[in-house]
């Protein structure tokens, strides 16, 4: 079917047409739901209350939980018992030798040497030499 007229509606016509759309009636259980929820004892509300948790936070919590479970299941490391005991060990005592070491040795010089007044040579023969 073709429309009678495709020109724009006037304000009055639009208001009339808009009134054609009626919303459905409000569900009667609405108020009961709201106020029943409020008058529930706290211990019953705990079971129906929900909280919003961001996904990254929830993922972290799950990961922490899994890690803690895994740690509990892993075998515990052996306990280390510390025991103190006195043991005698033979020690070699070393002798201390003292040696005088010149850091700077004085050079040998002929300074102050006097010639002898009388020369007395003495011949010493060795044991194997012929007489």
């Amino acid at each position, binding site marked *: 079917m073709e429309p009678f*007229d495709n020109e724009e*509606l006037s304000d009055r016509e*639009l208001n009339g047409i808009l009134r054609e*759309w009626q919303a459905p009636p409000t569900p009667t259980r*609405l108020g009961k739901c709201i106020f029943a929820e409020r008058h529930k004892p706290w211990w019953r509300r705990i079971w129906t209350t929900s909280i919003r948790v961001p996904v990254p936070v929830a993922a972290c919590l799950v990961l922490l939980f899994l890690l803690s479970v895994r740690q509990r299941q892993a075998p515990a490391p052996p306990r280390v018992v510390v025991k103190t005991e006195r043991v005698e060990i033979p020690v070699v005592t070393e002798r201390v030798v003292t040696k005088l070491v010149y850091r700077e040795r004085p050079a040998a010089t002929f300074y102050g040497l006097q010639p002898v007044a009388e020369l007395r040579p003495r011949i010493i023969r060795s044991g194997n030499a012929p007489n």
Partner: protein
Amino acid sequence: MTAQQAFESYHESVFRFVYRLTRRVDTAEDITQECFLAFLRAPERWDQARGSIRTYLFSIARNLALKYYRDNQAGMQLDDDQFSRVIDLRSGQELASVVEQAVSALPDLQKEALVLFEYEGFTLEEIASVVGTDIGTVKSRLHRARERLKRTLAPYRKVGNLHGTV
């Protein structure tokens, strides 16, 4: 005003508002419930100096509905495609359904302004308070929404008791 009184006074209009934004009874019910539970949990957040309790409740509901849009972006796009098909095959469509489709096809910010103004009787100041913007912006959104609907719904003009597509 107590929470119970606020609920008695406004739960129907909040439900209607959310339904017109989401077009789903179950979602509208959930959001309305969440809206009043939020008020019950922290009634001290309502600052009387900043607006009436009605605008406060509607702003909570509006934020929850926007969150619903964000979470169901693909679904909303599907609705737009559906709308263009409906317009093409308009013969046989009930007028209420056509209006529903046309309003739903509006951009979200225009739609909420139109629903609050046309269906819930909010003033421009109240709408500005609910959506957190200035009156000029609300007026502009409302004007654009109405202009778009005037063009879209023109084939469905009433002539006497008949609509344009009988």
